[in-house]
């Protein structure tokens, strides 16, 4: 395989109103190991791009309805960097000039030559891969290209400059610590330590001593003085992971640290000033824990000054191809072996898998596939084996709507402390309809009422 034909990953969207042309181009790309999806009109293409951003778009110029030029303009209105290759029946110079002005990546004449097209596509996919791989500055090491992650990282970069307390929510395995580290690395505290501690993994007694330190003889086994992680992180950042699992007794002590920026080691009568930035995270719904009394409300507000939400992998499926590529490369570097690649079917399968374990599960799957595959190409069967053949568990539209509706009703009732009349007004429904909705979802408005409400 020549350098020009070397394997690349990525997804190409084909747009043509001629089904025979779509089938031909899709077959060429598939034979080259490139995932292709097809749209038979400009409007269908725009819908597909909104759902799942491709790496390259190939469109015909002359189409019924929306032509290629209009499609190009509309694509670049929302995705200015998305490469668009245009195919034209005639080598019409005015069209080519206009397309160039509109930011076309390549203008190829039909009937298009297979190798010319594949070379163009490979060049653009390589460039897309590189942009995912060689990110420098803020978020170096965080692999993404999806809109949801781009927005999150832009927000996090702004926060990094200041000293504000950040709270990161997100499912287990989404990379909350990676984000916390990125914020620390971009902050003025970067020359000082970043110390992560999993509050859910350490017993309460030990956690207090780990966080705040202890004096010699403070408890049985405390043979030496221990300074604690807050002091060890002095000048830097402390990352309190799984803060939702922190015992209530310790929450009070943490609150004091946040209020006074002083720690009192176990067994000591004096406090020690500490200068740390606190980033906390949890996979739990802290709102619910506060509601149920398992998490202190005052601490919650101290920690949740700026909330960031790490999306689950299923919310950033656009990132899956470059994440697979990234972790295959890392595996090859570690194993000092030739980098392997997933075949087209395997990439498609992995891009639509449910991923309940998020990126952590993806890393494990890539490791398993790369280790157990003898050849250079990892087939679909191996990918399925790595995920133990679990079929994609995509919710139906009704299930998704029901889930959203229930969540919405709960949040409105929480805001109104269970006052149905107010909640119904906020939701734009009358009371009867609102009660009916509550009944459908088995929600009891009374359970949201505190002592000071209706």
């Amino acid at each position, binding site marked *: 395989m020549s350098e020009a034909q070397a394997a690349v990953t990525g997804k190409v969207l084909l747009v043509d109103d*001629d089904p*025979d*042309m779509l*089938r*031909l*181009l899709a*077959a*060429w790309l*598939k*034979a080259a190991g490139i995932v292709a999806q097809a749209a038979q009109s400009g409007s269908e293409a725009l819908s597909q791009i909104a759902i799942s951003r491709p790496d390259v778009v190939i469109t*015909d110029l*002359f189409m*019924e309805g929306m032509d290629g030029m209009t499609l190009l303009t509309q694509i670049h209105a929302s995705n200015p960097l998305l490469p668009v290759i245009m*195919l034209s*029946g005639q080598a019409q110079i005015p069209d080519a000039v206009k397309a160039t002005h509109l930011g076309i990546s390549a203008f190829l004449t*039909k*009937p*298009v030559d*297979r190798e010319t097209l594949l070379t163009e596509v490979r060049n653009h996919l390589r460039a897309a891969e590189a942009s995912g791989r060689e990110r420098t500055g803020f978020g170096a090491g965080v692999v993404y290209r999806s809109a949801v992650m781009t927005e999150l990282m832009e927000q996090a970069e702004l926060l990094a400059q200041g000293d504000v307390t950040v709270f990161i929510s997100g499912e287990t395995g989404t990379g909350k610590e990676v984000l916390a580290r990125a914020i620390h690395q971009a902050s003025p505290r970067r020359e000082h330590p970043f110390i992560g501690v999993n509050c859910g993994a350490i017993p309460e007694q030990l956690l207090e001593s780990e966080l705040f330190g202890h004096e010699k003889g403070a408890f049985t086994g405390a043979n030496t003085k221990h300074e604690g992680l807050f002091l060890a992180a002095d000048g830097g950042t402390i990352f309190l992971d799984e803060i939702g699992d922190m015992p209530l007794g310790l929450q009070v002590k943490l609150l004091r640290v946040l209020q006074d920026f002083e720690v009192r080691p176990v067994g000591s009568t004096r406090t020690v000033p500490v200068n740390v930035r606190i980033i906390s995270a949890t996979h739990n719904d802290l709102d619910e824990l506060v509601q149920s009394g398992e998490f202190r409300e005052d601490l919650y507000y101290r920690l949740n000054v700026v909330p960031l939400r790490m999306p689950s992998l299923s919310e950033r499926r656009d990132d899956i191809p470059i994440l697979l590529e990234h972790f295959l490369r890392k595996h090859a570097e570690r194993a000092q072996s030739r980098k392997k690649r997933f075949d087209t079917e395997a990439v498609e399968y992995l891009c639509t898998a449910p991923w309940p374990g998020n990126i952590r599960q993806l890393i494990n799957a890539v490791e398993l596939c790369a280790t157990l595959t003898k050849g250079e190409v990892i087939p679909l069967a191996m990918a399925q084996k790595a995920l133990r053949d679990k079929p994609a568990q995509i919710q139906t539209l009704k299930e998704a709507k029901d889930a959203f509706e229930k969540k919405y009703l709960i949040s409105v009732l929480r805001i109104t402390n269970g006052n149905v009349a107010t909640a119904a007004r906020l939701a734009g429904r009358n009371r009867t309809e609102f009660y009916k909705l509550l009944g459908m979802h088995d929600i009891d408005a009374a359970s949201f009422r505190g002592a000071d409400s209706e």
Partner: protein
Amino acid sequence: MKEKIIVPIDPDIADLVPGFLANRRKDVDKLRTLVQQGDFAAIKLIGHSMKGAGGGYGFDPITDFGAAIERAAQTGDGATVLAQTDLLDEYLQAVEPVAG
């Protein structure tokens, strides 16, 4: 019986070729009807599609017929469209794709 035209086919697209040729046979009938109806806009579209895809599937003459039909449609030249359609029809009857 007319001589067969043997065309070697790229194995990557071999399973698509029968469908492609079947669609062109349908185009022959459509083109004759469209000339009768004087619908040159629709004729131009068919010619354009044939021109774009023919060579890619390995059938350069289909690209040539398509280009000629598209050109003729632009000037409303029904006689040329019909003549090219007849040539396309003959070609489709004679062509025999074989694994390349």
